[in-house]
């Protein structure tokens, strides 16, 4: 029986998946989970650096990795075994998940699991129209940010798990929430430097929603599209120069050379001005340095505003930054869509960037997240 189920599951994976790049690496292990209500499958992690996932009896063992030290920062057990107890044991299946991270909520929507959403941080950050409707009708509650977290409201919403953007610290009032039977899981997708690594976190959300296979299929499609686009931009003759970011106070914060944004710029066939800077976070530069370094830079991306007038409102001296009068593109006209979807749809982000830097390569279609910044 065990072997039959194993083979049957393999057939499903190989036969049903329209993308078979890694389908041999994701195998069902239902035979190991006798008595469990849900099939537990082996999930191969290829791009993500900040978590490790292992299939264990009746569930998954999840290790969150500190990108600085490469040590295991936290260990979680996502299990269908209701008898298992422990501090970081998350019991599956879940029915009610509060996603305080906009990206996690977006991943749930993409997996068609938005009905499981019990809470979000704030309606004004939500892009998806169905989720917005359900927040307005009271089916999903607004829980605000972590600084003043409403424990009672969360309990009343019958939330079983809170997924939040992790910053290495304990969730406020975590012990109180745990006493009420509410589990917490930090989401560190934002720490991934490879665009596909970020997208791969959808596999964890897939497990939480009982939709592992759907998550794997979606991710495989994303990888395929991303690689095809990257290949398309590889053979261009000219790599246009690009700067990203804007002033915050007196300093300009630009993505560092090994960061997520720098990687996508490179994959889109652009020459990022600070590509040689080390680090995965950001580099800070004085306005003067930015002006001098970017006199001839062709593109300015992510200024964080919708118009040139708003750029000048930040600091009128920004008119001296070379590409201010040439090409400026941003996502601020629909910031919620960008934050909700771009993490797990990096192929669409890459497509936007190729459309910006090499419009001749993509003659059809339109922007997904970006648009040209006019007056």
């Amino acid at each position: 029986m065990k072997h039959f189920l194993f083979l049957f599951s393999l057939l499903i994976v190989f036969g049903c998946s329209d993308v078979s790049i890694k389908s041999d690496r994701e195998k069902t292990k239902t035979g190991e989970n006798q008595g469990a209500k849900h099939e537990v499958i082996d999930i191969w992690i290829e791009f993500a650096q900040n978590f490790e996932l292992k299939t264990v009896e009746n569930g998954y063992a999840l290790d969150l990795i500190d990108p600085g030290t490469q040590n295991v920062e936290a260990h979680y057990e996502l299990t269908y075994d209701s008898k298992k107890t422990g501090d970081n044991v998350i019991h599956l299946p879940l029915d009610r998940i509060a996603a305080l991270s906009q990206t996690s909520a977006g991943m749930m929507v993409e997996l068609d699991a938005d009905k499981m959403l019990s809470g979000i941080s704030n309606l004004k950050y939500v892009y998806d129209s169905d989720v917005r409707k359900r927040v307005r009708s009271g089916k999903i509650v607004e829980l605000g940010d972590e600084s003043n977290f409403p424990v009672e409201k969360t309990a009343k919403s019958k939330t079983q798990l809170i997924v939040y953007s992790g910053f290495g610290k304990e969730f406020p009032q975590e012990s109180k929430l745990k006493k009420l039977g509410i589990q917490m899981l930090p989401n560190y997708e934002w720490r991934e430097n490879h665009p596909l690594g970020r997208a791969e976190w959808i596999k964890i959300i897939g497990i939480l929603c009982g939709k592992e296979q759907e998550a794997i299929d979606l991710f495989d499609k994303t990888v395929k599209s991303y690689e095809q686009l990257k290949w398309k931009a590889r053979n261009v003759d000219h790599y246009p120069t690009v700067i990203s970011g804007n002033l915050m106070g007196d300093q300009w914060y630009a993505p560092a050379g090994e960061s997520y944004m720098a990687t996508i710029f490179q994959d889109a066939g652009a020459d990022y001005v600070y590509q040689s800077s080390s680090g995965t976070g950001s580099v800070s530069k004085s306005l003067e340095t930015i002006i001098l370094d970017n006199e001839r830079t062709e593109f300015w991306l992510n200024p964080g505003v919708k118009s040139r007038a708003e750029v000048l409102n930040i600091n009128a001296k920004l008119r001296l930054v070379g590409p201010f009068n040439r090409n400026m593109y941003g996502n601020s006209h629909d910031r919620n869509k960008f934050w909700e979807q771009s993490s797990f749809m990096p192929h669409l982000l890459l497509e936007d960037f190729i459309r910006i830097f090499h419009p001749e390569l993509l003659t059809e279609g339109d922007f997904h997240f970006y648009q040209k910044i006019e007056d």
Partner: protein
Amino acid sequence: MIISRKHIFFIVFAIVCIFVLSIVHVGMNAGDLSPDDFWNAFFHYNDSVIEQSIVREVRFPRMIMALIAGGGLSVAGLLMQTLFKNPLAGPYVLGINSGASLFVAFSIMTGIPFLTSDIGTISNALLGAFIFGMIIAGFAGITRTQISLLLIGIMLGSFTSAFVSLLQTISDAEELKIYTLWALGSLQRAEFNQLPLISLVFAGGIVSSFFLIKPLNIMVMGQEQAELMGVNMRVIRYALIGITALLTGLITAFCGPIAFVGLAVPNLVRIMLKTQHHRILILACLVLGALFVLLCDMVIISLEDIVHIPINVFTSVIGAPIVILLVLKRLK
């Protein structure tokens, strides 16, 4: 009161230092900039040459604002310390700066594009400083003692701080970011073409303070003594509050709050020069204050490649130990 050679030497020496250090400040980390760029930026300006624009639009306004902020806040602090006969009084003690902060916070949290712009922030800071200056001036007409006025100023400050905190809790992340960045202070917001107006208002405040030297010297002996000697304390109080509001409002509008300068520099000047003559004190505060902020900014520039320290943070880091030393010195 006698003006000694030591006082004159101190002021002349400080002016020479300001002159030399201003040139050093503008030329720091020059990198790709040549002496010609500096010369042409002022005398043969071509806005298509980026190096000239850097000197004219970025470096020069920053240096001038350091001098104006340092000098202006120090003189405002001196006036407040003399008015209240309290060495721990400063330009912010009357709640004038709090008024500017409140109006800026309110304008940012409204989310109206104009109000969140540079010009909107400057206008609101000026408006807030002047409205609170007027409120204090109103109280100055009612209360008879300086200590009551001081307490009212502190209470106004507490009230506005609470209101700003409330606005911060209900504002969204973007608005909070804008306000927080404003509150860190910056010498880089002023534009080259704004400098003549800023300098004119600044000069107006400083020159006005020189007209009050005589009553200020008498006030050192106490309010009653000053009244006995024919000083119209009510008018003088209005004038001192008006000048302080003008200088503090101007600097807060263009640089954000810059702490401790107005508190520390006048005390330093008194300790160094050991005089109560306000002609010397005002001049010395003007030059030493300018020198102090200029030096602070030079340290900030030299550390820029390693870490960016906002001016308000740096002056607090330097100013707080000075104030503690002053308190300890007085206790002895």
